[in-house]
C-alpha cells in the first residue's frame, strides 16, 4: 500500500506581500534587464534557439538580449497546470495552485550518521536510505535527491542517485544533479523505463528537473543542454535562482527579485521557444549574504519575505513554483534551525507555493540530518494545521455545548469534545511532559526524532521496483 501524502489545500489564511503595482514594476524592470543588460546563456544550442526567434545574441560573450514581447509570448505557452507523476499513481501530485507539497532537501555532501552520530561524506547508500525513510513520511510528497553519491564516479553519479531513489520510493522523484546532455539523455531513458515508454513518460512524468541558474544574470552550460533534452521528452523542468543580496544581487530586496526573476523567466522562455507547451516551473531560494563572510545564509527575515514574494511572481507568470524553505543555516538541529525553518515554511505556505524544498539538511543545505528531517516534517505539520484557519459555523460555535456545561464545569465529558478533539494538533517532538518526568530522563526532540528515523529505516519496506527494471536501469547507466 502506498503511504498517504499530506499536502496543504483550500487555505484559509492569506497574505498580500506585493501589490499588483509592485509586481508590475518588478516585471517591467525584469524585462528591461533582459532586453538591455542581457542574460548569459553559455551554450551554443541555447544561443541557436534564441537567435532563431530573433533575440540579439552575442556569440563571444554568449549574452542574449531579448525584447519583452518575446519573453512574454513565450511564457504564455507554458502550461499553468500539470501533474508530477509518481511510480504509484495514487501518489501523483497535481500542480494546480491549490496544493503545497514538501520534498526532501538536496543536495547535501555530508551526513550525520544515524547510528554513530559521526559526520561523514555522503554515499549512494545514504541516498537509498534517506529515500526509504522519506517514502514512509506522509509530509514528504516527493523526493529531491537528498545527498550526493560521492562513492560513484562524477560522470554517472546523478544517474545512480536516480536509480537509488526509484528503488526506494513510489513517490515522484526530482533531481538537481544532472549537469550534462549525456546524463540527461540517460535519465530520460531511465524515466521512460519506469513510466512504461516515451509516450507514457510524456503523459505521466515520473521525473522532473530542478536546475540552478548562475547568478547574477547567467545560466550554466551543461544545465541548459540537459534542460533542453528533458523538456523535449516532456519532463518538467524548473530553473532555480539563489540570488544573494549584496553578493550576486543588489543589497535591496526588490533588486534581488529583479535579478533572480530575469534569470528564471529568461530560462523558462528559452525552453518554451525550443519546446512550446513543455511543462516548466519557477524555482527560487533567494537570500541575503552574510555581511561578514559573504556566505549564503539560508535563513533570516529577507529569506522569509522572498519565500512569500516568489509565489506572487510565479502566479503572475502562471507557472508552478518550487520554493526553497527549511534549509536552515544552523549547524545542528537547534533553536536557529527551528526558527528559520518554521518562518520560511510558513511564509512559503501562506501564499500556496506549489512545492517546498525541503526537509532534512543543515548548514545551508550541506549536511544531512535525519533528526532535522523528522523535525522539519513536524514544522510542516504545524503549518498544515494553521492553514486550515478557524472555521466559524453552528457546529464550531458550539452554543449547545456551552449551554450544557454552563459557568464553572468543564468540557471533558462532552460528546462534542470527543467528536472534535482529533482536529486538535498532537505533537510528535514537542515536550509537554511533566517537569519531573523530563528531569528524570533529560531526553528531547532530537532523541525522539532519531529513534523514529531508526525505526522507519529498520521496518519500512517500500513497494519494491521490479528487479528486471533495476537491472535495465543499471545497463543504461553503464552505457551512459
Amino acid at each position, binding site marked *: 500500500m502506498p503511504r498517504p501524502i499530506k499536502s496543504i489545500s483550500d487555505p484559509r489564511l492569506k497574505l498580500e506581500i506585493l501589490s499588483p503595482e509592485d509586481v508590475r514594476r518588478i516585471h517591467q524592470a525584469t524585462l528591461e534587464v533582459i532586453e538591455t543588460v542581457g542574460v548569459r546563456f*553559455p551554450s551554443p544550442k541555447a544561443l541557436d534557439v534564441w537567435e532563431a526567434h530573433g533575440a540579439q545574441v552575442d556569440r563571444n560573450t554568449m549574452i542574449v538580449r531579448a525584447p519583452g514581447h518575446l519573453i512574454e509570448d513565450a511564457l504564455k505557452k507554458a502550461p499553468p497546470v500539470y501533474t508530477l507523476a509518481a511510480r504509484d499513481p495514487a501518489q501523483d501530485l497535481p500542480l494546480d495552485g491549490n496544493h503545497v507539497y514538501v520534498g526532501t532537501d538536496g*543536495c547535501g*555532501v*555530508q551526513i550525520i550518521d544515524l547510528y554513530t552520530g559521526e559526520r561523514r*561524506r555522503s554515499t549512494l547508500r545514504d541516498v537509498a536510505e534517506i529515500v526509504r525513510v522519506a517514502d514512509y513520511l506522509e509530509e514528504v510528497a516527493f523526493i529531491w535527491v537528498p545527498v*550526493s553519491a*560521492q562513492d560513484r564516479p*562524477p*560522470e554517472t*553519479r*546523478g544517474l545512480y542517485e536516480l536509480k537509488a531513489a526509484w528503488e526506494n520510493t513510489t513517490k515522484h522523484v526530482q533531481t538537481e544533479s544532472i*549537469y550534462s546532455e549525456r546524463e540527461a539523455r540517460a535519465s530520460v531513458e531511465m524515466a521512460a523505463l519506469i513510466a512504461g515508454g516515451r509516450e507514457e513518460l510524456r503523459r505521466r512524468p515520473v521525473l522532473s528537473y530542478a536546475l540552478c541558474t*548562475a547568478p547574477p544574470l*547567467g545560466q*550554466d*552550460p*551543461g544545465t541548459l543542454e540537459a534542460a533542453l533534452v528533458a523538456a523535449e521528452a516532456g519532463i518538467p523542468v524548473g530553473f532555480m535562482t539563489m540570488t544573494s543580496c*549584496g*553578493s*550576486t544581487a543588489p*543589497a535591496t530586496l526588490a533588486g534581488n527579485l529583479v535579478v533572480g526573476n530575469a534569470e528564471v523567466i529568461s530560462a523558462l522562455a528559452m525552453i518554451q521557444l525550443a519546446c512550446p507547451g513543455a511543462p516548466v516551473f519557477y524555482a527560487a531560494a533567494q537570500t541575503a*549574504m*552574510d*555581511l*561578514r*563572510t*559573504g*556566505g*549564503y545564509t539560508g535563513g533570516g527575515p529577507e529569506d522569509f519575505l522572498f519565500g512569500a514574494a516568489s509565489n506572487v511572481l510565479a502566479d503572475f507568470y502562471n507557472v508552478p513554483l518550487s520554493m526553497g524553505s527549511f534549509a536552515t543555516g544552523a549547524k545542528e538541529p537547534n533553536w536557529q534551525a527551528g526558527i528559520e525553518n518554521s518562518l520560511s515554511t510558513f511564509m512559503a505556505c501562506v501564499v500556496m507555493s506549489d512545492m517546498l524544498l525541503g526537509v532534512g539538511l543543515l548548514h*545551508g543545505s*550541506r549536511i544531512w540530518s535525519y533528526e532535522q528531517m523528522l523535525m522539519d516534517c513536524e514544522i510542516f505539520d504545524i503549518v498544515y494545521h494553521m492553514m486550515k484557519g478557524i472555521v466559524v459555523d453552528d457546529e464550531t460555535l458550539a452554543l449547545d455545548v456551552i449551554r450544557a456545561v454552563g459557568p464553572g464545569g468543564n468540557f471533558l465529558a462532552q460528546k462534542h469534545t470527543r467528536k472534535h478533539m482529533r482536529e486538535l494538533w498532537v505533537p510528535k517532538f514537542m515536550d509537554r511532559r511533566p517537569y519531573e518526568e523530563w528531569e528524570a530522563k533529560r531526553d528531547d526532540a532530537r532523541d525522539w526524532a532519531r529513534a523514529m528515523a531508526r525505526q522507519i529505516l529498520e521496518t519500512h519496506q517500500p513497494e519494491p521496483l521490479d528487479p528486471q527494471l533495476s537491472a535495465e536501469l543499471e545497463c543504461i547507466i553503464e552505457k551512459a
Partner: protein
Amino acid sequence: MSDELFQAMAQSIIDGDPDVAADLARKAVEAGIDPLEAINKGFVPGVDYVGEQYSKGEMFLPDLVLAGEAMKAAIAVLEPEIARKGGQRQTLGTVVIGTVEGDIHDIGKTLVATMLSVGGFRVYDLGVDVPVPTFVEKAREVNADIVGMSALLTTTMVRQRDVIEALEDAGLRSRVKVMVGGAPVTRSWAQEIGADGYSEDAIGAVAVARQLLGK
C-alpha cells in the same frame, strides 16, 4: 603637504573610492613623493583601519572589497613608478588562483583573490573553468608560492586532486603550497587529496595563506 596627502590617501581606501585613490596616487607621483612611501604611509594605514574595524564588527565584507578595489587602483598607478626607479613592491607571496575545469562558479574564488590581494599578496586570477595544465603553467611562469582552487560541485571538486597530481608530475609540488575551497569542499577532502590549506571563507583564506608561507 605630504602628511595631508597621506591622510587623504588613507581616507580614499576607507571610503572605498578607486577614482580618488588613483588621483591621489598620481598627485604623489607628480609631487615627487617616493611611491613606496605613498603606499606604506598613505594607503596601507587605510587598509589597516578597515581591517581593524572589520574585526570589531563595525565594518562588513563590502567595506573590505571596496577598500581592496581602491588599493588596486592606487597600486596600478604607483607600481610602474616603483619599477621605473628600479625597486619592487614587497608582497607576502605570489598566488595563482582559479575555479577548476567544468565549473563556472566565480564569486567565491574572486572574493578570495580580492582578499588575498588586499592582504598583501600578488594574485594571478585565472578565472573559471580553468584546465589542469593552465594552473601548472601559470604557477611555473610566475614562480607561484601558492596555487588556490575553487569548486562548487561534487562532480568538479575531483579536479582539485588532478591539479595537485599535475603539480607533482611537473616537479613543482615541493615549491608551491596548495589551497582549496568551495561549498562542497571540507577539511577532510582537503586532507585526502593532499592539499596544504583549506578555508571556509575568504577572510579565513588570507590567514591560511599567511600561515602556509610563515608570514
